[in-house]
C-alpha cells in the first residue's frame, strides 16, 4: 500500500431530467508513493479531473475508497493542497494574504514562499493586477503554505501561453526537486506529462480509467533542453500512440 492509494474508485453523475446517468469514471486503482511525482494524462472528458477532485474530497465517491497516509479521505482538507485550472485567488486579498489564507502562516513563511515562486515585490498586489502566470504561482504558494501531504494540480498551466507554461513547469519541478513533495498532476499535454513526472498514468477515453502507468527514467534536475533528447522522444512516441487510440475512441463516441 502506497502513501496515497485509490482503491476501486468509480463515479457516476445522475442524469438531469430523465436523461441517462453519466459514467464519469470507470473503476480505477492508483498507488502513489511518498515524494512521487505522478502525472495523469488523458483525452478531454476522460474523467481525470473527476479523479483528482475525488482525491481532493470535492466530489463524493461512487464506489471504492481513497486512503491518504492510511486515513480515508471523505472531505476536502488542508492536507491535500490543490491548484485549479481556473484562477482561484481571492480577488479581495493581496498576494501575501492569499498565501496566508489557509495556513495563516507567519509573515516569514509567507515571504519565503513568495521568494520561492518569484513574486518578491508583488506581495501587496491584488490578483487583478497580476498576469495569469503570476496568479498561478501565487496559487501554488498558497497551496504549499499549508505544508500539505500531497499537492493536487488540475491542469494548473492549461490557461497559460506556451512560453509561460514552460517556465512554470521548470519552477514547479525546481520546487519539487528541492523540497520533495508528493505531487499528482493532471494534464492533457503529453510533453508536460513526461517532463514533469516520475510516472505517467495514461487514462482511457470516457468513461475513463487508468489503463497504463509508465515510469519516466529521466535524470534530475531536469532542464527544458531535455525535451529534445532522444530518450524524451522515445517516451513521447510511446505515450502518443497510447493516447491517440483513446482520443480516436473519444471522438467516435461523441459522433455515435
Amino acid at each position, binding site marked *: 500500500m502506497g502513501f496515497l492509494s485509490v482503491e476501486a474508485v468509480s463515479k457516476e453523475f445522475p442524469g438531469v431530467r430523465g436523461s441517462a446517468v453519466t459514467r464519469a469514471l470507470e473503476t480505477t486503482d492508483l498507488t502513489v508513493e511518498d515524494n512521487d511525482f505522478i502525472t495523469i494524462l488523458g483525452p478531454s472528458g476522460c474523467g481525470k479531473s473527476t479523479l483528482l477532485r475525488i482525491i*481532493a*474530497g*470535492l466530489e463524493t465517491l461512487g464506489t471504492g475508497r481513497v486512503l491518504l497516509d492510511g486515513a480515508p479521505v471523505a*472531505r*476536502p*482538507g*488542508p492536507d*491535500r*493542497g*490543490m491548484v*485549479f485550472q*481556473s484562477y*482561484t485567488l*481571492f*480577488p*479581495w*486579498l493581496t498576494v501575501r494574504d492569499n498565501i496566508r*489564507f*489557509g*495556513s495563516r502562516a507567519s509573515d516569514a513563511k509567507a515571504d519565503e514562499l513568495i521568494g520561492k515562486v518569484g513574486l518578491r515585490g508583488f506581495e501587496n498586489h*491584488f*490578483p*487583478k493586477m497580476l498576469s495569469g502566470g503570476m496568479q498561478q504561482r501565487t*496559487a501554488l504558494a*498558497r*497551496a504549499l503554505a*499549508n505544508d500539505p501531504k500531497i499537492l*493536487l494540480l488540475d491542469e494548473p498551466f492549461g490557461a497559460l501561453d506556451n512560453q509561460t507554461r514552460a517556465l512554470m513547469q521548470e519552477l514547479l519541478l525546481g520546487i519539487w526537486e528541492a523540497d520533495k513533495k508528493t505531487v499528482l498532476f493532471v494534464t492533457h499535454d503529453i510533453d508536460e506529462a513526461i517532463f514533469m513526472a516520475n510516472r505517467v498514468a495514461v487514462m482511457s477515453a470516457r468513461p475513463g480509467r487508468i489503463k497504463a502507468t509508465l515510469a519516466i527514467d529521466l535524470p534530475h534536475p531536469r532542464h527544458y533542453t531535455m525535451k529534445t533528447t532522444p530518450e524524451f522522444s522515445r517516451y513521447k512516441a510511446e505515450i502518443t500512440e497510447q493516447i491517440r487510440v483513446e482520443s480516436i475512441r473519444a471522438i467516435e463516441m461523441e459522433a455515435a
Partner: protein
Amino acid sequence: MFEPLKPVPRDARIFLGAAFFVVFLAAWALATFGGLIDELFLKDPVYTLKIGIELFTEYGFLKDVGVTVWRVVGGFVLAAAVAVPLGILMGAFKPIEAFFEPFISFARYMPASAFIPLLILWAGVGEAQKLLVIFIGSVFQLVLMISVIVGSTRRDLVEAAYTLGADSGGIVRRVMLPGAAPQIAETLRLVLGWAWTYVIVAELVGSSSGIGHMIMDSQRLLDTGQMIFGIFCIGVIGLVSDLIFKWVNQRLYPWAF
C-alpha cells in the same frame, strides 16, 4: 464616432453630461417664455428658482428637506439591518432560502403605497408610519437581491477555500461575505434610490412636514413652480447621495473597481 463600446475621453464625457442639462433647461425656457405652455400648468425656470430660494428663506423648507432625508435614511437603515443578514443567510444556506424565498417573492409584489391606509390605522400619522412605508418598500427587494448575490459566489473560490482548510463558517465569513460586499453595497445604493419614491408617497398622505407635504400644499395653491422645485430637490439629493455611495464603495473595495 459611433463605434460600439469605444470609450469617450473624460472631458468629453463631462461636457456631454452637462450639455443635456443645458438642452433640458433651454427646452423648458422655450416652452414657458415662448408661451407654448400656459403658466398655470408650468412655471418658467427663473420663477421656479426664485420661488425655490424663497421657500428656503421665508418658509423654512430646509426643515422639510431635513425631515424627509431623516425618514428615508431611518427607514432604509432599518430595512438594511434586517435584509443584509437575512439575505446573506438565504444566499449561503439553501434550507433557509427554501423557507423564506417563496413568501418574500410574494411579499415584494405588494406595493408599499397600498399599505399606507393600513399603516395609518396601525401606526397613526407619525414618524413610525413613514418609516414603515419605506421599510416595507425596501426590505423585500433588498433581501432577494442580496440573497442572489451571495448565492452566486464563485464555486471555484468556495472549493479553493475548502481545500485550504476552511469550514462552513469560514466559507461564509471569509469567502462569501468579502466577495459579495461590493455588490451588496451597489444594491444598497440602488434600493436607496427607490426608497425616495416611497417617502414622497408616504408624505403626500397624512403628513404635516417633509418635501412631499410641501408639494401637496403647493398643489392647493396651484403653484407649479414650488412643486417642480420640490421634485428637483429630491433629484439633487438623490444624485448627491448616489455620488457619495459610489465614492465610499470605491474607497472600501479598491480590488473590485
